[in-house]
């Protein structure tokens, strides 16, 4: 690590880890409720659990992205962050807004819009927080010696992600319009601008871990993010099939969303090719595992499992069933969860100066969480397919169908236990690693 201000990233990574554990806890509450054990109903009704699960997911990923940016931008721009106290302020305000939002969900204080449940007054605070973050990042880049493609793509992704939050804050009387713009946030985030962030972080990690020439890596980075937008922007149409919008979206959404896996395939091939090409054997092998892992699992979870239900004829039956939940879990995990954990794994030895590259359990954390997630995805798939056939195709009643699906939630909980063991090991490892120290700074 070259710049002292990069140390601020540790706080964001720590917040990420803690919120991930909390997110998982609410996942269990919901899984048990699906099994019929809803003892917490009066305290934490299902809608409070689900709002918490989804929002904590978004916040821990964003916190990870912010930490990654605070770590990467000084390194790439060759300049200290313009202000560490401001970054600290930004950190604490993020943490406080997050905590207040979660408490609010338990007191019926929210907006009932999936993934965007944070109530309006807090939305404004989120905006201020993100503006402060962007100010620090962009000014650092501005004052820096270098503006690399990697840092520009990353910053562009972060900037667009902030802009796209705004359409989600407008109130519409018409449910269809409400939903239309909800997708400008949710879809254009995960299948658009977040892929820029992913591409940027992935490129940075590959440059560091494989030693392949920056020019080669950054050229392919442009191709991948180009594919992302060419397919993903009109691909938004796969959410406009059945919400009261015109039929031409069936054609446009179908064609362009079916091309979306290309960008993820691009990331996977790109990472594997650079890994083969690289001459350097970086000692941080676990970081390499997570980096290659995110590139591959995102292709499976987002690309393959996304395309599985993206054609209008299929989506007619799977729309709003556990098939969606199956895809949602593996896509978020593969593309963004593993990416954040990979960034943390890369940064920790550099921040703390401990060359303990394979801490006990680091490898178990990787394998258990991934095997667990594959199991969870399979359980959701079984539940989803059952639901589609019984409820949508045969016309069985909702509750009868849910009862027929219960066994799959037992499997879900078993797989989730494996997953959770892996995550707990990861987070424990993180805190055991220690805090950043000035001794870790490289003298130049």
């Amino acid at each position: 690590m070259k710049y002292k201000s990069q140390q601020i990233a540790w706080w964001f990574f720590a917040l990420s880890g803690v919120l991930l554990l909390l997110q998982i806890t609410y996942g269990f509450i919901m899984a048990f409720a699906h099994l019929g054990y809803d003892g917490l109903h009066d305290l934490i009704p299902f809608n409070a659990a689900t709002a918490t699960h989804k929002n904590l997911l978004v916040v821990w990923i964003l916190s990870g992205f912010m930490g990654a940016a605070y770590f990467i931008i000084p390194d790439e721009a060759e300049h200290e962050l313009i202000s560490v106290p401001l970054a600290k302020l930004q950190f604490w305000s993020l943490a406080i807004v997050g905590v207040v939002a979660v408490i609010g969900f338990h007191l019926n204080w929210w907006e009932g819009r999936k993934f965007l449940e944070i109530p309006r007054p807090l939305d404004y605070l989120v905006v201020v927080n993100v503006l402060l973050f962007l100010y620090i990042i962009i000014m650092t880049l501005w004052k820096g010696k270098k503006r690399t493609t990697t840092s520009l793509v990353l910053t562009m992704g972060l900037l667009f992600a902030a802009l796209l939050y705004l359409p989600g804050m407008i109130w519409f009387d018409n449910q269809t319009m409400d939903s239309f713009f909800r997708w400008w946030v949710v879809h254009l985030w995960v299948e658009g601008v977040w892929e820029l962030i992913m591409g940027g972080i992935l490129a940075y990690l590959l440059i560091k871990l494989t030693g392949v020439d920056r020019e080669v890596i950054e050229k392919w980075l442009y191709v991948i993010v180009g594919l992302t937008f060419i397919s993903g922007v009109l691909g938004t149409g796969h959410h406009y099939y059945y919400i009261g919008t015109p039929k031409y979206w069936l054609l446009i959404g179908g064609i362009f969303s079916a091309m979306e896996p290309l960008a993820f395939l691009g990331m996977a091939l790109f990472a594997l090719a650079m890994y083969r090409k690289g001459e350097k054997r970086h000692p941080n092998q676990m970081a390499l595992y997570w980096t290659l892992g995110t590139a591959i699992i995102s292709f499976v979870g987002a690309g393959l499992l996304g395309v599985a239900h993206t054609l209008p004829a299929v989506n007619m039956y799977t729309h709003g069933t556990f098939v969606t939940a199956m895809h949602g879990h593996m896509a978020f995990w593969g593309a963004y969860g593993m990416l954040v954990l990979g960034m943390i794994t890369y940064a920790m030895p550099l921040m703390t100066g401990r060359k303990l590259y394979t801490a006990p359990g680091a490898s178990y954390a990787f394998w258990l969480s991934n095997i667990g997630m594959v199991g969870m995805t399979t359980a959701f798939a079984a539940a989803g397919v059952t639901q589609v056939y019984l409820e949508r195709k045969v016309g069985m009643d909702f509750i009868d169908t849910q009862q027929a699906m219960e066994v799959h939630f037992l499997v879900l909980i078993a797989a989730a236990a494996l997953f959770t063991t892996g995550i707990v090991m990861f987070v424990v490892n993180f805190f055991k690693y220690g805090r950043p120290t000035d001794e870790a700074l490289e003298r130049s």
Partner: protein
Amino acid sequence: MLSKNQARTFFLGGTVVFFLIFLGLSWHTLAREVPKQTNAQNLTESVIRGKEIFDKNNCMGCHTIMGEGAYYAPELTKAYERKGEAYLKTVLTVKEPWAPRGRKMVAYAMSDQDANDVIAFLKWVGEADLNGFPPKPDLQSKVPVPAK
């Protein structure tokens, strides 16, 4: 071979072109088609209040509506048609968690007025043209009927 400059042009050009097409289509959808398809003229004060109540209580945190939401409780797009007004009214106004088949709903104990507004909203949603969603069960007729 592709140069870095060409790759950058591909990215920037593609982004701008496809984003502009998307904006144009979105404008057409929202300004021209959605009002027709969703019968925007029927968005009465009661329907709008109903949506507000639906939103404020995060009903989407258990149910789906137009196929969006959570998967803990039934799809509500056609709830008005399926269950009728009287049934919905009971569900919304009872003071104990509604759980006829074991799975509990939050007891909202709504006032008459609030319940009517939510029902008006559900009725409006049910009348929107969703391009055929929710689908008719296409295998129902193939299920063998057991002999007595």
